[in-house]
């Protein structure tokens, strides 16, 4: 093989502490190296041309560039050599900047190190073979998991682009958390007025198939060709028949059923449609409360249903959908404030969560939009908002900031002042986090125009005194304790990962952080991708964020899907495992260890069982390679021979020099 070596000075970044010329000179002594030089900026346009010319001139078959980290410019240089007619995998990069010139001022030692690193790259390159990626057809359907605002946004954007969309929602209606909100900050526009139309679009768009009250059961396959098992939970109502007329709700006698949509502030009927604008507008029976389900009598709904859609014998069923990409938009839960004994551990009826407050002020809420105390239905005079409940609190394992609370309590305080002119609003905060567009101004307005009292300090304890609640807080700016006789206390409960997040992550083979939020591929540069190709993230399932950010991420995920689907086939990364069938003893160890299920059995003509790698599924981790007893399965471009060669020259070099 004819190899060319290029040592980058990177201005002075490398040259200052590495004698690049010496390294180049040394490189010429290595086997197969026919050309070596150093250059000011190898990654620059002229730098790349220099490489291409050299390839021409010395008809090189492989190139080594010693420069920055391959995580930085490997792609750049591969493209460069490809332009010059080489296979892009006939290239190796030695990292003599981040791992050498930048971490020591000792030029001698650095130069020695650079020489070794180049030597190793050359040796590895000598074993490189041209690799060619294969093409697989893409199934251009996308699965959106979660029917919250960011899921809806993603689904609509995809459908807009003509893609078939499958949407799966756990609850019996889409809309998610946003559907429960009254107004949205910082514009105070009505939440359902802006969300409602989008929900309707989802229902009406013929490109979207909606599975409400369903959950993901299993996921197999790979980017471009996933197989997804969807579990349609029993609603005990035939949704094809049900018209959502709501007659059953009027007649159902089990009126004490838990009303999840109203955050438990109200009760509903055992058979119910969560709220008037629900999509799909279909009734569902809650078996925990239905009289017939518990004590075998009633069946009133069945009698009065005009289209007799009631099916008490309905069972769960599983359907399989095939898609090419998956957008995960599973949203979040709110921190359970019952861990705060000092705030009544959820025992005080007039200490409510922010989300409950949303239902209180909402016109379609339990009190028709009048803010009243849950305990006695009286109008509160003093309303206290407490920030950071379940946020920034290592003592309950939640050190992170939930990001949205500062804003939503400012909004709620404003709403409270709007609804009850003569009420006093107090906000206990630690710091105000208002980084969004017009956010800070909004918070200022709450204080300047709406006269909301902001008190910097956390609340120590809340205790009932007669009908009221005494809120014992601190004004750290004044350095004095303050007490408020509150009629209503609103806890700004923080954001927690959704309960089922981890199970779903296991099914999707995506990773999650210690709090259960899904991990993006790169915190800055790949915010919606996951490390499992073809699975994208949208909304709060990836980390706390507000509506604009969730929507933006929903669109971003859709865009990523569009980009992926803009091709008819996908090019697979050829740096994957491949089996040498002659050596394979068919032990199946590789099949067991592969984290991606990318290895399967293959029966040869002689009936013998061999392992076979699915090119498109293999992610190239090399676990199988390390496991295979006869080393029949090798990770291409990172074979045992290559690694051992690197070790060998490195240690040998040391021994003789």
């Amino acid at each position, binding site marked *: 093989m004819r190899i060319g070596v290029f040592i980058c000075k990177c201005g002075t970044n490398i040259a200052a502490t590495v004698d690049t010329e010496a390294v180049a000179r040394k490189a010429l002594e290595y086997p197969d190296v026919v050309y070596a030089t150093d250059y000011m900026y190898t990654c620059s346009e002229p730098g790349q041309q220099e490489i291409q010319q050299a390839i021409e001139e010395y008809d090189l078959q492989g190139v080594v560039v010693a420069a920055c980290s391959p995580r930085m410019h490997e792609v750049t240089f591969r493209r460069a050599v490809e332009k010059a007619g080489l296979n892009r995998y006939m290239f190796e990069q030695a990292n003599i900047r981040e791992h050498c010139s930048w971490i020591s001022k000792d030029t001698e030692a650095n130069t020695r190190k650079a020489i070794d690193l180049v030597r190793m790259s050359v040796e590895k390159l000598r074993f490189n073979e041209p690799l060619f990626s294969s093409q697989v057809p893409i199934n251009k359907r996308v699965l959106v998991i979660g029917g919250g605002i960011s899921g809806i946004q993603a689904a609509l954007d995809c459908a807009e682009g003509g893609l078939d969309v499958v949407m799966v929602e756990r609850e019996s209606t889409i809309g998610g958390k946003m559907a429960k909100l009254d107004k949205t900050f910082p514009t105070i526009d009505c939440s359902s007025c802006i969300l409602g139309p989008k929900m309707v679009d989802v229902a009406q768009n013929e490109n979207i198939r909606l599975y409400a009250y369903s959950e993901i059961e299993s996921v197999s396959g790979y980017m471009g060709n996933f197989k997804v098992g969807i579990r349609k939970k029993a609603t005990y109502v035939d949704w094809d028949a049900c018209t959502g007329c709501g007659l059953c709700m009027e007649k159902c006698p089990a009126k004490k059923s838990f009303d999840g949509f109203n955050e438990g502030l109200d009760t509903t009927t055992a058979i119910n449609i969560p709220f008037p604008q629900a999509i799909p507008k279909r009734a569902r029976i809650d078996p925990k409360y239905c009289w017939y389900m518990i004590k075998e009598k009633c069946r009133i709904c069945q009698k009065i249903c005009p289209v007799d859609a009631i099916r008490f014998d309905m069972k769960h069923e599983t359907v399989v959908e095939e898609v090419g990409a998956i957008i995960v938009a599973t949203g979040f839960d709110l921190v359970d404030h019952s861990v705060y*004994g000092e705030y009544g551990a959820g*025992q005080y009826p007039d200490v409510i969560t922010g989300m409950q407050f949303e239902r209180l002020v909402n016109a379609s809420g339990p009190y028709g939009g009048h803010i009243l105390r849950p305990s006695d239905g009286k109008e509160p005079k003093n309303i206290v908002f407490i920030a950071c409940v379940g946020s920034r609190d290592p003592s309950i394992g939640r050190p992170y900031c939930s990001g949205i609370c500062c804003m939503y309590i400012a909004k709620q305080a404003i709403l409270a002042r709007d609804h009850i002119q003569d009420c006093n609003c107090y906000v206990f905060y630690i710091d105000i986090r208002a980084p969004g567009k017009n956010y800070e101004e909004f918070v200022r307005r709450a204080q300047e125009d709406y006269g909301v009292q902001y008190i910097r300090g956390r609340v120590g304890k809340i205790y009932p005194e007669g009908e009221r609640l*005494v809120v014992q807080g601190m004004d750290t700016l004044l350095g004095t304790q303050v007490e408020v006789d509150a009629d209503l206390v609103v806890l700004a409960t923080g954001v927690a990962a959704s309960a089922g997040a981890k199970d779903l992550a296991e099914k999707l083979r995506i990773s999650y952080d210690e709090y259960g939020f899904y991990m993006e591929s790169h915190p800055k540069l790949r915010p919606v991708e996951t490390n499992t190709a073809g699975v994208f993230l949208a909304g709060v399932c990836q980390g706390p964020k507000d509506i604009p950010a969730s929507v933006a991420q929903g669109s971003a995920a859709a865009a990523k899907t569009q980009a992926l689907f803009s091709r008819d086939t996908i090019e697979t990364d050829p740096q994957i495992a491949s089996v040498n069938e002659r050596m394979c003893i068919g032990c199946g160890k590789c099949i067991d260890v592969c984290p991606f299920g990318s290895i399967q059995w293959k029966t040869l003509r002689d009936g013998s069982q061999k392992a076979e790698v699915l090119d498109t599924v293999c992610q190239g981790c090399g676990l199988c390679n390390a496991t295979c007893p006869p080393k029949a399965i090798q990770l291409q471009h990172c074979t045992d021979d290559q690694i051992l060669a690197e070790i060998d020259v490195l240690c040998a070099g040391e021994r003789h020099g």
Partner: protein
Amino acid sequence: MSQTAKRIAYYPGCSVTGTTVEFDQSTRALCTALGIELEEIPDWNCCGSTPAHSYDPLLGAALAGRNLALAEEMGLDIVMTPCPSCLKALKEAIRKYEEKQQSFLDILQMPFSGQIRAISVLQMLYEDIGPKTIREKIRYRLTNKVIIPYYGCLLSRPPEFARFDDPENPISMDKLLQAMGASVPEFPYKTECCGAAYGVTQNHIVGKMTGRILDMARRLGAAAVAVACPLCQQNLDLRQSQVNRYWHTTFQMPVVYITQLLGFTLGIDPKKLGLDKLFVSADDLFKEKSEPLENQTQLKSA
């Protein structure tokens, strides 16, 4: 529970030998009745309390440590004390032993393994006896009497140190009182501080603290406040007159030890319980004894 007499090392602590002797009396009487063998640590000394700890935690630890060492000498692995601040001192000693073993032992100069466990009277009543047993054993019930459970600071705090009950909303005393048939309202000041040692040095502080507590108790229609800490009892009972002067109030709120209440319901002679030692008389509380209710309680326990 403990049919075969359970042996526990007993550390009374200075205050119960003097100003709060009735806690000591009732505790002993109660344990005898419940078949728990209290073995007073022979020739015990002061635990050092806050002063010694403020002087230097190591000194406090060593002083308390002597008592623990003596208890280990008795071959017992649990030491019980009626006084929460003594309890804290004892636990503190065990912690110091874990943290600064060498210097601790150098100063103590006694064999000590650090294996011993320190508990409060309340903890023993709740964990070793338990409401169920009490419901079975009592002879008189405090029917339709509102009794306020007041825990004070130290019985359940700080959590990882006390390792007992809930730090914010403890329920052990509530449960015990309910077992005695009393009606127990939600008391918001359960763990509010009573003013602690400031009775002596800054008693206006105590005035404010205890005033709030007594006031809330009265508003909840309390017949009495039940306590399990001598300091709390002193501040609420002995100093109630001072509180009245401070707030211009007329509190006449009996402040009774849980051990006294329990002793009474078990039918122990009030003399043995030192009921006469209370400053605010609790006689009304114990005056009209409801009839012995063996059969009824039997049903309950069944």
